[in-house]
């Protein structure tokens, strides 16, 4: 009798342990963000929002009963470190997928590692080379520069503007924008009449703007990330330039208005919808995701959730979707990622396919303008 009780207790015990182990087996996801260093303006919000959304998913019971476990490493924006840490995520932490890195340079360096070890990588950087040509294991959430340039040119075409001057920063972001600005101009009947660059750390761009003033273009397009474009806005105001000024999605945050002050007034940029989430019509398919994201981010970090944070949010949610549809290994997660259809995220509406691992369309960008020290949608 006693033996039977003990043995049944043992069986029961082992059953409980087994089910607990099954339910608890977490799914490990790696993340590489440039939390420190020159690209920390990307990496920090990305890490914050990735952690936030993973916590929310786990609090709601995980994905199909599995908790998500996020392993984040800081690359400090260094390509060599990014490669070492990607190897660490794959070999030592044995993650099933990697989110990040934050910059195009790091992403390009990590791609060979992901391709070789067959681990899905969802990059949070914008460079067009990341997913073109399509690489089997590599996806991305940040909008291509192609789309941003297209959005500006579309507007210029509508206003019958033909002659533009471009002023771009000499880093990865700027040179990619410069390439696209020059390549797409002809398609919209636009000629680039002058092509100037400035250094990422320059503090005065009066020289370039004076030159541009002499050329008298119909519009100026400046491509860069903070603080350069704010300096350009101020310089243009000081020189009394009346030429319409367009900038890139690289400055799409309230920070830009803070930096440029009154000089920001009237400047137009193509931007992800997160910047004007509150102003979007209810019919917008992204509205629900955007409002959730903005509110959650505000609650957790008491800060404005920008589109950089959105890239990481999208990446985690895309993975969640892939796992829900049955992805349970690196290979099946990859296959399911590729089957993502009409996911309304922060950066836009994603539809991946075997030929498209960037997944976004023209509707990812809206044109916004600074009016009364705030961003408004240009109708």
């Amino acid at each position: 009798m006693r033996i039977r009780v003990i043995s049944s207790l043992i069986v029961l015990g082992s059953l409980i342990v087994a089910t607990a182990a099954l339910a608890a087996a977490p799914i490990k996801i790696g993340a590489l963000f440039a939390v420190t260093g020159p690209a920390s303006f990307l990496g920090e919000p990305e890490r914050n929002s990735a952690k936030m959304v993973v916590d929310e998913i786990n609090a709601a019971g995980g994905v199909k009963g599995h908790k998500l476990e996020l392993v984040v490493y800081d690359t400090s924006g260094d390509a060599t470190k990014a490669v070492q840490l990607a190897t660490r995520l794959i070999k030592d932490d044995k993650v099933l997928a990697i989110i990040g890195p934050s910059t195009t340079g790091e992403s390009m360096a990590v791609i060979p590692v992901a391709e070789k070890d067959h681990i899905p990588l969802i990059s949070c950087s914008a460079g067009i080379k990341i997913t073109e040509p399509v690489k089997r294991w590599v996806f991305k959430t940040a909008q291509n520069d192609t789309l941003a340039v297209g959005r500006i040119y579309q507007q210029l075409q509508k206003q019958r503007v033909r002659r533009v001057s471009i002023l771009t920063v000499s880093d990865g972001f700027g040179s990619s924008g410069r390439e696209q600005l020059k390549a797409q101009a002809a398609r919209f009947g636009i000629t680039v009449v002058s092509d100037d660059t400035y250094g990422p750390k320059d503090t005065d761009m009066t020289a370039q703007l004076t030159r541009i003033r002499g050329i008298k273009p119909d519009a100026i397009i400046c491509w860069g990330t903070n603080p350069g474009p704010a300096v350009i806005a101020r310089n243009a105001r000081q020189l009394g330039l009346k030429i319409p000024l367009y900038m890139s999605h690289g400055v799409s945050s309230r920070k830009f208005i803070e930096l440029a002050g009154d000089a920001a007034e009237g400047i137009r940029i193509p931007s992800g919808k997160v910047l004007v989430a509150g102003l979007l019509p209810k019919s917008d398919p992204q509205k629900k995701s955007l409002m959730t994201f903005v509110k959650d981010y505000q609650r957790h970090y008491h800060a404005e959730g920008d589109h950089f944070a959105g890239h990481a949010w999208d990446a985690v949610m895309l993975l969640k979707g892939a796992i829900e549809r049955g992805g349970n290994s690196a290979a099946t997660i990859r296959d399911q990622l590729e089957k993502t259809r009409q996911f309304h995220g922060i950066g836009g509406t994603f539809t991946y396919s075997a030929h498209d691992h960037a997944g976004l369309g023209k509707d990812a960008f809206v044109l916004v303008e600074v009016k009364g020290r705030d961003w408004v949608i240009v109708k």
Partner: protein
Amino acid sequence: MHRDLLKFMLFAAMILAAPLAFQGGYLMNVLVFVGINTMLAIGLNLLLGYCGQISLGHAGFFGLGAYLSGVLSTTYGWNPWQAMPLAAVVVGSLAFLIGFPILKLKGHYLAMATLGMGIIMYIVFNETIDLTGGPSGLSGIPNLSIGSLDFDSDVSSYYLIWSFTLATILLTLNLANSRVGRALRAVHDSEVAARVMGVNARLLKVQIFALSAVISSLAGSLYAHTMTFISPASFGFNFSIELLTMVVIGGLGSIYGSFLGAALLTLLPEFLRAAQDYDIIIYGGLLMLMVMFMPGGLVRGVPDLFRRLLKKGGDRHA
């Protein structure tokens, strides 16, 4: 001399056996970069530690080697094994030519001139977009291979890189113990005295500068073919300073010191990752303590520390 050879054999055996201890882990990948950094630190140490001439632009030579090798093999379809020596020859000759005017300068002026040289090279990598790919980098660089053996895994790259590093160590150890090495140290202590003794100090400095650039260029080529992607950010001023830190922390004028410095600066951040957000503070603090209490570098400081500890222990017993 026999003892030196024995020491080298022991060191080489340790290096060759290391993969057995780290089987398959990511540390193998980090150790590959320890090898590359060791080569770079030795190159700079020849110049700074032995000859007493500072360079704040060595990341430029490193980058030039990487880009020459990368562009030749990727854009022009060269065999990497041909691109690598060509890059080394070009970088060496360039350094030889730059060396004559630059090495006439001393102290702060030399530091400034080499700093400028490094920054100019960085700007060239960054702005010649059609050739180097500019800030978004150059990708798709082929791996080195011998026959059907492709050096694309961590373990195979480890042996590839470390055979180059060990060869560099052997070469520089021999150089340091030869007549040239003694002449270098003489120039370090007093250039005038060295010249009085019949050392052609000017030519010697330029030759060492060129040799140091060749070693950096080889390290650069190896880096390019291992990473298969390069971008200018890896070859900027910050990296020149990191190299300088490796040499100083490891020990000026010591080949094994350069290895210790490179290993410490490459591995320490990996171990400190456990401290999460505080890693940078601990890292900086440790470096500061080492410079304060081990001015001769790790290679002299660590044995000193042991000796002092042993002595203390001995006193207590007595």
